[in-house]
């Protein structure tokens, strides 16, 4: 298992960035299920200029799930919503120095968590909440 993980994955697993919740988050993404062994919850804080100023996560999952969650929060910070939507699962995996094939779904989950958080933000904005 560990042998298949890159140094970067292990580094993010050991010291995950941005763990926790954002109490006044204006977008929250929830993806995954416990049967598959991964659940990610991603919180984003977006300012008036549609820039993501903060991102935090909570994840139930394997080493790769934790590392991809950590990486995606790092990648989105400072990006506009439009740019954040362009972050693909491959970009997350690449930023981590690659993932074992069997763990690529974790990067997909990270991308989906981000999209889900942005969707949530856009919905809230539209409804004026």
């Amino acid at each position, binding site marked *: *298992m560990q042998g298949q993980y890159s140094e970067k994955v292990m580094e993010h697993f050991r010291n995950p960035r941005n763990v926790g919740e954002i109490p006044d988050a204006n977008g929250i993404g929830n993806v995954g299920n416990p049967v598959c062994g991964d*659940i990610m919850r991603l919180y984003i804080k977006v300012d008036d200029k549609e820039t993501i100023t903060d991102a935090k996560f909570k994840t139930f999952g394997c080493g790769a799930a934790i590392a991809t969650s950590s990486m995606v929060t790092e990648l989105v910070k400072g990006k506009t919503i439009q740019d954040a939507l362009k972050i693909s699962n491959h970009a997350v995996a690449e930023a981590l120095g690659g993932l074992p094939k069997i763990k690529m779904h974790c990067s997909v989950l990270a991308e989906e968590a981000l999209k889900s958080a942005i969707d949530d933000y856009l919905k809230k904005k539209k409804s004026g909440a």
Partner: protein
Amino acid sequence: MNSIYLDNNATTKMREEVLEAMLPYYKDLYGNASSVHEFGRVARRAIDDARQKVADLLGASSVEEIFFTSGGTEADNFAIRGVFGALRSKGNHIITSVIEHHAVLNTCKFLEKEGCKVTYVTVDKDGLVDPENIKRAITDKTVLISIMYANNEVGTIEPVTEIGQIAKEKGIYFHTDAVQALGKVPFSAKDMDVDIISISAHKIHGPKGVGAIYIRKGTKITPQIYGGHHEMSKRAGTENVGGIVGFGKAAELAQKEILQDGGRIKDLRDYLYKGISSKIESVRLNGHPVKRLPNTLNVGFKYLEGESIVLNLDMEAIAVSTGSACTSGSLEPSHVLTAMGVDPGDAQGSIRFSLSRYNTKSEMDRVIEVLPPIIKRLRDMSPLYEGHKQ
């Protein structure tokens, strides 16, 4: 920091005495046991001696019931495919359980494509097979019942004596995969109604790549590897002399020490669980509370996924596993825990600690010290844990 190895159901450290016994057969004593000359005779005598020791550990009536193989997986394949092949004209039905090792399950799956009907009996919440379910599954086409002696993931010891009696009454062959039970719980083939037993050397501090199959005299079974007249024409191939010698030595030592080691290991294991369960909330013991291998402890840590725990313990130089080593590449929750009715989410957070004679109390103390902060850190990270916090 010394590393702590608690994955002995995956494999064990080879004993010094075993390695010493093997070495000459990789140096000067390199004869082929089938050769007529002195080199060959030396190798033959070494194999005969090892066969006797393995027969003694298993409680076989005769050395002629022991056949060496490349390991437990080959023995399981041989047992199931061999009986199915030999009794094809009599019937095509096999009964096994849902919690068998994949060496049995995938062999059965393969045979299903060859026209075999397989009944996979379920287990209860402790991982026990109910002999009544076996009885009910028997048809006039049943030729083999294959139930493991003890489960590799949770350690539950199956009622193999009762199942053997049922098989005997009905005139059906009974095979048991005793790979995990060997050397951990005493048993004797001649005191049981069992026709075929699979065992492996590397689980009892012997070398990898060697195992054996016990086949009760008179059992009809078709060889699966053809070639020369090795292993009484049941399993061809030049014998792995060094490995077999090592297996013999490991068997001899296991037989001498099984009871004293077993008691000490069980005490350590129970001490470990007591420590873990007193320091960490929301843990569960997977497997039968009493009918369980003395070295095996499978613990579920609620709200967590197992690999993250394994990796964190690995960073502390503590080696444990989620379920079985053979399935660690799989994303599915353990088939054993799922069959026991453990919630799939909870099954993901289960860790197997498997001990051996080499573990010490101070090692258990270190695990008990290191584990709680790891679990806390991971739970603080887990979205499932919210709402359960005080």
